[in-house]
């Protein structure tokens, strides 16, 4: 499997909007006739999305999305293709000399450090993905947020009552990006709607809603997304009326695990999605600011080492935290959630190094 890497930048990238990338790149990644090819540079062009590409050995395929300076990705491949063929666009006349015979692909969107205002947000769905052919959205090297809100790539939507980033596609990884719903009538920032065999992975991400319009508009909402893993992430909704950090589906066959994440709610940290009273997945080393809805009475046996600022605490080895300046967080009011030395959060979790070894900043724990 080879990564097909495209860039998202305010200017000069392969794309400037995530929604455009998603619609342009959407394909069946698992198909044997979808492949990524390396090349030494484009002559003429640019290629046209969807145009027929003819190879000198007789094979052909259809262009997917935007070609990069080193790669092209094609679908519906047929015929003979040799590793030194010239691939020419039937419509654009653009051509490249490929240096391999094509490989099964995963797609990677590398995001620059800028605020990407995509008014209606993006919906990652309609692809065909798998355990070896997946989607990754992450910052480019050097564009990481470092755990600081607003410091890296910020994916922002402004349309009223619209989800900012809807992950309806299984096998999607979000690593180190910030998702912000900034609409006047805000909605969910990060909504994981993939269900069957979802395998969505959220690591080192920040999601926030500036102006939620309803209790259901959490910074994060997760459906029964099977085998979804959330860790090292920050979910912020400090609104005084609709401030729910996350709405989590607690039912069986849902989320795989939630580790070392902060749920910062102005009204409520977690609102359980269903009236089912059992939460079947482990929640460990997490921070909940604001009450947790008390629907769930039975948690997974390994759930514990979580800290709570208010009612609804659950699991073993609970901690009570104080959000006043400098007591447990560096500066809660200004989104500095670094545990202070000697506070309730420092050193009181449990070691999950068998699963991961870093924190939201990328530092080794």
């Amino acid at each position, binding site marked *: 499997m080879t990564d097909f890497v495209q860039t998202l930048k305010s200017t000069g990238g392969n794309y400037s909007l995530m929604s455009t990338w998603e619609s342009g790149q959407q394909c069946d990644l698992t198909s044997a006739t979808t492949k990524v090819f390396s090349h030494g540079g484009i002559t003429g062009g640019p290629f046209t999305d969807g145009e027929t590409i003819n190879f000198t050995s007789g094979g052909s395929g259809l262009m997917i999305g935007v070609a990069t300076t080193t790669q092209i990705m094609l679908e519906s491949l047929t015929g003979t293709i040799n590793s030194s063929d010239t691939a020419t666009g039937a419509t654009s006349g653009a051509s490249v000399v490929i240096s391999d015979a094509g490989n099964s692909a995963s797609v990677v969107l590398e995001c620059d450090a800028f605020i990407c205002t995509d008014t209606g947000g993006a919906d990652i769905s309609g692809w065909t993905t798998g355990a070896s052919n997946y989607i990754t959205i992450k910052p480019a090297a050097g564009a990481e947020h470092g755990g600081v809100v607003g410091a890296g790539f910020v994916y922002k939507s402004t349309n009223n009552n619209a989800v900012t980033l809807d992950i309806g596609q299984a096998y999607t990884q979000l690593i180190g990006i910030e998702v912000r719903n900034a609409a006047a009538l805000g909605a969910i920032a990060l909504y994981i709607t993939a269900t069957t065999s979802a395998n969505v992975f959220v690591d080192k991400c920040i999601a926030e809603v500036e102006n939620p319009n309803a209790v259901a508009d959490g910074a994060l909402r997760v459906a029964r997304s099977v085998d979804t893993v959330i860790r090292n992430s920050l979910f912020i909704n400090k609104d005084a009326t609709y401030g729910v950090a996350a709405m989590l589906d607690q039912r069986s066959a849902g989320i795989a695990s939630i580790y070392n994440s902060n749920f910062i709610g102005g009204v409520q940290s977690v609102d359980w999605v269903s009236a089912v009273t059992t939460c079947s997945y482990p929640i460990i080393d997490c921070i909940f600011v604001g009450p947790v809805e008390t629907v769930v009475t039975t948690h997974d046996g390994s759930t514990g080492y979580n800290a709570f600022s208010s009612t609804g605490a659950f699991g073993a080895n609970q901690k009570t935290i104080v959000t006043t300046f400098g*007591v447990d967080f560096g500066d809660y009011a200004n989104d500095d*959630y*670094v545990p202070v030395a000697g506070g309730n*959060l*420092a*050193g009181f979790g449990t070691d999950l190094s068998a699963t991961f*070894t870093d*924190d*939201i900043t990328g530092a080794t724990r």
Partner: protein
Amino acid sequence: MAWSTVDIGAYKAAAGGTDVATTPDNLVLTEYPASIANNVNVATSLDTLVLTEYAATISVGIDVATTPDTLVLTEYPATITSNVEVTTTPDTLVLTEYAATISTVNNVDITTNPDTLVLTEYPASIANNVNVATTPDTLVLTEYPATIAFGVNVATSPDTLVLTEYAASIANDVNVATALDTLVLTEYPATVSLANDVDVTTSPDTLVLTEYAASIANNVNVTTSPDTLVLTEYAASIANNVSITTALDTLVLTEYPATIALNSAVDTTPDTLLLTTYPVTFGRDVNVLCNLDTLILTAYSATVNSQTWVPVDTTGGNSWTPVDTTGGNSWTPVDTAQAATWVPING
């Protein structure tokens, strides 16, 4: 490899055990129970120590002692314990909450130049035998019942004493007595007591009474040059036998029923008497006597008693100028077209 620290949440915890001990030091403790334990020193040039929450304490044996020192205690019960000294130039000690005290028994001194002592909450007090005694001193008491206890001296030049709340008082035998004294009483019933032999007696004196029931009691003198006496609220009055007697006196009465009582004299050169609201009255035997006097009555029904002229027809203007300062019939109406409507009461 296992985590070096098992911290809860998305972030690895900050490292601990940091010392703050360089120049310039800036140590700010903003939460309770913030404390500086024994034998912890914050002791370099440009030290700043700020304690903003209650139960903040400076323990015994801790010195905050460089130049310039700033010590701010903003919550109760903030205390400076025994033998803690704040002793450099310039010292600034600010106590902003009640029960803030400078203890008498602890021998706390604030003794440099210039000293600034500000007490902003009740019952703020300066206990007996605490001295605020350098040049220039500034003592500000902003809450009731702010008091200056017996035996406390504010006695240098120039002194500034400001009492801003009611029940503010100057107790017996307290002297405010140097050149450039400024005494301001802004709330009722602010009084300069008669019985206490309180003198405001230097040059130039400024006495300002800004609330009603403000009064200058009998036998209290405001007697230097140039004097400025301003009474800004109604029921302002100058009692009998009160003298304002120097050159360039200015007496301004801005609210009704402003009165100049019997036997009150306003008599120097040039005098300016401004009466701005009706019904302004002069009692009998009130003198406004000198060259270039200007008497302005700005409201209807203003009257001048014996030996003066009054307007009969108030539509014709109400100003006039003196031709002969001896009074009598030497007054001339300003609006000559209406001359017939002016008559002397006692020509």
